[in-house]
């Protein structure tokens, strides 16, 4: 994408970005609002991809529906924009059928933890060898700002106009309890940490989960005290506490001015992955393979 820059008063045209080959630059500009954190996650994923040890064509990005769901379509990879909430089972089928892939699911909090919440916990339980990045902007942004399973108690949205009466999921706690091999949370402010976490997810054999908290200025931000693009980012800077060893039962997220936001790489453990167990199963039963068998 061309972009004018100035150099001592002379206008220069930068015709290329070093990461252009990793994205579908002809599709820019993207659809995201000013101040949105999803583009930061896209850039972090692309930066991590440049360090990937896998052949480029083995990297796959699958997304669901919503603002974050549009990430896949901007990547110059094999990408899949699926149905709302179903990116994880789609990825499960793909990863089982072709275990040499490095599969990322990148989708929003509504997609992953609300409509897709059941798929999330079961993929973590099976320890499917996929990586899930959940961009949490605390509401359904694309549809205009409604509450979901990550909207904090008392927060205002178009479907909780008098304050949310539901308590949100503490998603890292949930996914850790379900059995994921890797669980982390950072914010869109923590660009380096997000990129490093994604690189670590690529190394993990099993289910790896990263929550990235993101501003959503026009909807969640507007109704909850963070209307300008930088407001939520300033809040992340002031209130984030890095605690890799945090007791996950205490890391629920709220966005009040005094609420702490606990971030870190919380879980990094070895459990047998689903595809390792399936391969072992095939090896045990496959001794009959090739031979014609009786009914």
């Amino acid at each position, binding site marked *: 994408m061309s972009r004018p820059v100035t150099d001592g008063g002379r206008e220069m045209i930068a015709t290329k970005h070093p990461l252009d080959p990793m994205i579908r630059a002809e*599709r820019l500009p993207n659809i995201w609002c000013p101040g949105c954190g999803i583009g930061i996650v896209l850039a972090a994923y692309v930066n991590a991809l440049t360090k990937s040890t896998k052949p480029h064509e083995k990297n796959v990005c699958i997304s669901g529906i919503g603002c974050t769901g549009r990430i896949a*379509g901007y990547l110059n990879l094999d990408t899949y924009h699926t149905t709302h909430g179903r990116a994880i089972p789609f990825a*499960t089928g793909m990863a089982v059928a072709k275990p040499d892939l490095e599969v990322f699911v990148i989708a929003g909090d509504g997609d992953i933890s609300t409509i897709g919440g059941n798929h999330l916990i079961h993929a973590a339980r099976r320890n499917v060898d996929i990586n899930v990045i959940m961009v949490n902007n605390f509401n359904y942004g694309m549809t205009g700002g409604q509450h979901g399973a990550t909207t904090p108690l008392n927060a205002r949205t178009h479907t909780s106009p008098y304050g949310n009466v539901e308590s949100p999921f503490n998603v890292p706690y949930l996914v850790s309890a379900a059995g994921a091999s890797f669980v982390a949370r950072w914010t869109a402010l923590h660009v380096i940490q997000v990129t490093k976490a994604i690189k670590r997810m690529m190394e993990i054999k099993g289910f790896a989960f990263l929550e990235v908290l993101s501003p959503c200025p026009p909807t969640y931000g507007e109704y909850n005290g963070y209307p300008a693009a930088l407001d939520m980012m300033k809040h992340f800077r002031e209130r984030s506490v890095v605690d890799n060893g945090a007791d996950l039962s205490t890391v629920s997220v709220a966005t009040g001015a005094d609420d702490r936001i606990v971030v870190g790489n919380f879980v990094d453990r070895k459990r047998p992955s689903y595809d390792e167990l399936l391969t072992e199963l095939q090896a045990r039963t496959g001794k009959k393979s090739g031979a014609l068998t009786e009914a």
Partner: protein
Amino acid sequence: MRRSGEVKVSATTTINKKNTSSGALKPGTYFMMGNFACVEAAIMAGCRFYAGYPITPSSEIFERACVRFPEVGGSAIEMEDEVASAAALIGASYAGSKAMTATSGPGFSLMMENIGLAFITEAPLVIVNVQRAGPSTGIPTLVGQGDMMQARWGSHGDLETIAYSPSSVQEFFDLTITAFNTAERFRTPVFVMADQVIGMMWERLKIPSIEGVEVLQRKVMDAKTRAKPFDYANDFIPMPIVGTGTNINVDSLTHDYRGYPSTDYTVSESMIGHLLGKIRRHAEEIWKWDGYLLDDAEELVVAYGSTARSALAAVKQARANGIKAGLLRLITPWPFPDAIIERYSRRVHNIVVPELNYGQIVHPVRENAQCPVIGINRAPGALMDPTTIVDALEVVAN
């Protein structure tokens, strides 16, 4: 039996026998349950991925797949629900696998959204519906034919679907292989609309030698020569397989020839035109039907699935009673064989359509017939009694 409308090998398909021989059952005569026969056919057709969720009366398909698929180097996995099963099939299909699941009414309902995704993304896969009595949980586990219209219209938006309806264990086996071939050729989800009687019945099954079985393989996109991944001028587009370097965006949104989302009306028109047209333009190659005593028939029974067995008995009884009855058995209810119905309807006085539902396939029959069409409808939960059909034939013939 299957003399009409056989799927032929075309330029867009290749025969691959290599992948299918290992682990298939020895050729010969077996006594087997319909649901088991379905799994053996899938293995012979090259299917190596199954994602399922238990539901009667289809459970034996899933159970046998869990025994047999690992033996032949495949995977049969249990998902958390049928929504997930259908999604997993599309992922596996794009990984290059022939993929299948089996379910019954309630699970079929849950699959509808991702059936639409498979259709718009052109993912070949096979969904077997061993129908039971509905609506809702209905009667587990007794026979019904209440999902025939759902197979056609169940997923939102405009779809053109392909469905086979077996009437015996042998045909459940044969049509499962055909369903995979059709899915591979058309790059689309294909249904095998069995029912509880056909699924759970034990019958003689002849398993052919693999050399005699036609097995089609989808045309795969070459990363080096890829140009228009969604070339809507072409009915049969090679499929980009994940991990092969095609770098293609596969989208549930209406998408243009590059696979990019678009809100342009002309894109919508060309994409839908392609998705529907690739099946409509070749419908006659998909159609299968079977006839009994059609040559001099004056009263015609049109039936499918287990009800066609009752209809055959009824036609024989009616003949004994002096009525010139014949049977037209629909093997492909979808795409609907409209020209076949029209052709036979011109030769008879009346058509009766017995179904274990309150009127589904009778509607497209009536839409295309040039003679009166009478539905014989019974609640699901028991096989159609042949005497019910004989009684109807007596009424229309006199």
